[in-house]
């Protein structure tokens, strides 16, 4: 397989796509939001239990391409037990990395497993798939009720 493709669909991504973590409905929850990517029809619902600015638990459900599902799954793994400030910071790092910002070359260590999504860089049209869950997170934290869209 072509290198860029192999990088995009690397094993960790495919594994999270096949077996997404924290998949389902979290009830009760304090925050939730729905995210939608109108280009490809990907839909994700994210529910979180937040106490004292700490993400105690979070779960997602939805339909989408391998990248959006794996990204959502990786997000839930990365954010469990993190503070809101840490979550925002991680999103900034992640977004800068995917969009290939110059300062992002130093981020990969801090991204942990999320770095598996770096391959998306070579596929600009797929960045929205990878960031859908994160935009949904932002909406949930802002407690916006209307579905967010990545367009």
């Amino acid at each position, binding site marked *: *397989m072509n290198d860029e*493709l192999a990088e995009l669909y690397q094993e960790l991504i495919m594994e999270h796509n096949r077996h997404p973590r924290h998949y389902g409905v979290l009830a009760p929850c304090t925050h939730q939001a729905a995210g939608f990517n109108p280009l*490809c*029809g*990907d839909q994700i619902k994210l529910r979180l239990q937040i106490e004292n600015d700490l993400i105690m638990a979070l779960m997602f459900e939805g339909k*989408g*391409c*391998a*990248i959006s599902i794996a990204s959502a799954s990786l997000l839930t793994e990365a954010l469990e037990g993190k503070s809101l400030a840490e979550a925002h910071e991680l999103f900034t790092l992640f977004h800068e990395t995917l969009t290939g910002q110059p300062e992002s070359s130093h981020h990969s260590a801090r991204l942990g497993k999320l770095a598996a999504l770096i391959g998306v860089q070579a596929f600009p049209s*797929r960045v929205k798939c990878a960031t859908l869950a994160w935009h949904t997170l932002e909406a949930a934290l802002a407690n916006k009720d209307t579905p967010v869209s990545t367009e």
Partner: protein
Amino acid sequence: MDKHFGKVFSPSDLREIRNDFPILKVKIKHRPLVYLDNAATSQKPQCVIDALDRYYSHYNSNVHRGLHELSELATTAYEQSRQRVAHFLKAKESCQIIFVKGTTEAINLVAQSYGRPLLKKDDEILITALEHHSNIVPWQVLCEQTGAKLRVAPINLQGEVIQEEYEACLSEKTKIVALAHISNALGTILPIKAMIAKARAVGAITLIDGAQAIPHLRVDVQDLDCDFYAFSAHKVYGPTGIGVLYGKKELLEAMPPYQGGGEMIQSVSFEKTVYQNLPHKFEAGTPHIEGAIGLHVALDYLHSLGYEGIAHQEHELLLYATELAHKHHLRIIGEAKEKTSILSFMVDNIHAHDVGTILNHYGIAVRVGHHCAMPLMEFFKVPSTVRASFAFYNTQDEIDALFEVIPKVREVFQ
């Protein structure tokens, strides 16, 4: 372009035709481009590209505004295009041809200029379940404005409109019936002539969304007896940004303008403005002049190829691709008896977006997504499909190239 081709293109005809399209020589990721996204927009033959170049190099000027030589040349070319379109659609008069941005604008124009003044609460607008968003949303807007109701004639699992159900949806309440001639997502050809007659029998006016039909079928608006017919130039080998609304004269004449501005007036004073006659009443502002000129050349080009040869070649490609799709155990979405060269499919339960990315890596351009027909995707219970849409310049080799990637997709997702 003076050459006329036979009812079946020979291999050398096909090579010659392919050579008319410079973009087909482009390489994507070091491989020859395989362009199978013709339903989204078609490629442009050299003659169309040259016509745009000639206009800007030799007679660029505004139309209907100047007495100088260039303006006259531009005006003549612009109006000749209108005549060409009228002739092409077999319209009675060229003033029934309104240049618009595209199919979308044509439908919005009819909704707002015809529908809005006329429709009342509880009147009905009837569409079908396979419409493009541009033949859904303008009617929803109109319903919000007038209190009218939108009804939807259902389809069967093959992707055909169920004719008994369609008839059952029609009543004296139905004021507007808006139908795709061909579904962009499935390729289904609707039996619109019979459907128009049924709509007419209850007193409804009809609008046909011909965006996908004009590239494949000869259309005769008088024979169809539709009230409005819309299409986009960019899907018939012409430029983007221009399209056509055909309308029956008495309807167009009775309708108020869609937009106000220059070109569409006879006289303006602050007390009273007198509108132009057809077609200019509906063409406010400087129009897409080179678009009209390019469309004229595109229609000439299509005419020189002939619809028989085009239909034959595209049908062969569809049969070949459908056979390969079965061989590769793909789920085909849309298996109408009457369909054009559109093949929508799913590879197992792999998301179309992933399939599209992998295909693109091998230089193959297809459309993936909901094809601006989200209710239709809902009906088939898929979030999106992969859509390969073929034009007469495509080849069996290109279809082979598409299907050679399918096992590679499965390998990644095994």
